[in-house]
């Protein structure tokens, strides 16, 4: 059950925006990179363009291919007992139990569903906290400072999440669980998702 064209377009457009945001954000944030690159106006412009793309990609995909986008959103958002079993597995293994997980319902396991929710949350928080950083003259200095703190902390969490996501995507190339090249698991690895 490979990813649909709309899913792939949404995934890779968000991934490209995140890559631009991460690279430009690193230059804006890390003094050594700021000094090496300079050109703050253009780096800032790239960061803003990435943010605009990130803000526009999901609504654009939803407007153009609503049924597909709605289906994948439901598939990722609705969690089941199988997802709970997936989350509990490490603790049960630590407790010495032998755990054989059933195949996930649909294409995604609990970890992937959690990842999707956390990334969506992080990106939304980054967009929201970016507003006082951009329209600083509308806000008190302390609000801008707090927004920046949340922005930086959320970025660090997102970088860790995405690093794990990319690692697993590369590691699973060619596996029945799919990988970064295929964008989805094969049919024999999953049970049908009742939401689809």
């Amino acid at each position: 059950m490979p990813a649909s064209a709309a899913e792939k377009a949404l995934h890779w457009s968000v991934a490209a925006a995140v890559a631009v945001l991460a690279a430009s954000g690193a230059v804006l944030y890390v003094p050594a990179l700021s000094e090496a690159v300079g050109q703050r106006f253009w780096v800032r412009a790239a960061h803003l363009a990435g943010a605009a793309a990130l803000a526009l990609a999901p609504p654009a995909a939803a407007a153009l291919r609503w049924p597909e986008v709605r289906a994948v959103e439901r598939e990722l958002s609705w969690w089941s007992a199988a997802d709970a079993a997936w989350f509990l597995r490490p603790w049960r293994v630590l407790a010495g139990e032998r755990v054989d997980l059933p195949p996930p319902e649909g294409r995604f396991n609990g970890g992937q569903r959690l990842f999707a929710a956390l990334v969506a949350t992080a990106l939304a928080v980054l967009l929201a906290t970016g507003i006082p950083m951009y329209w600083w003259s509308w806000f008190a200095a302390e609000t801008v400072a707090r927004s920046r703190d949340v922005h930086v902390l959320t970025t660090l969490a997102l970088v860790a999440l995405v690093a794990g996501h990319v690692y697993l995507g590369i590691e699973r190339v060619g596996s029945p669980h799919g990988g970064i090249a295929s964008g989805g698991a094969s049919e024999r690895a999953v049970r049908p998702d009742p939401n689809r």
Partner: protein
Amino acid sequence: MPDRRPLGRRLFVAGLVGGVGLAAFGGGVPAALRAWLEGPLGELAPGDGFHFYSVTGAIPRWDRAAWRLAVDGLVARPLTLGYDELAGRRLAAVGADFRCVTGWSVSGVRWQGVPVADLLDEAGVAAEASAVRFESADGAYADYLDLATARREGVLLALRMHAAPLSAERGAPVRLVVPFYYGYKGVKWVRRVTAVAAAGTGYWEARGYDSDARIRG
């Protein structure tokens, strides 16, 4: 689907509300964590806590013997001052928090420098002047202050920070310090001070920044 719940959506809404709420109403992150963030990450920016901003690709280099500051425009007596001539004048000190519009700040920065008012008085600003333009040696950055603001106490052409000569990254040999304004008004690497009839548009103001740079309380 009785055993399925929209927990992903709930997590999203809770996370978004929590993150925005923390930014809007939070008491701020603990000082140690903020210091680590301002670092950033502790070791990536050792030193004075500033982040480096430049709108060009290189830091202007200067030679102490050859460097000159011009004070010109609508003045009776244009000045051309070497570094030692400038440094030999009455230096004033001001202590202030340095705030960037993007939210980072450095507390209690102690600047020493020549009051802009002293230079303007020495040059004899003409009656038709109403603003002062500060030009950076980077060839791109310039900004303006109205004449009354330029003459206010604490507005300096700073030569020293924390009792040491300015570093190249902080604007050596001379930078503008306006302690009650956000940092983008603090032109670095100043090479020319020009009295003009009317304030023009500064570098960032031409790119969307508010012309009112006062730090909002």
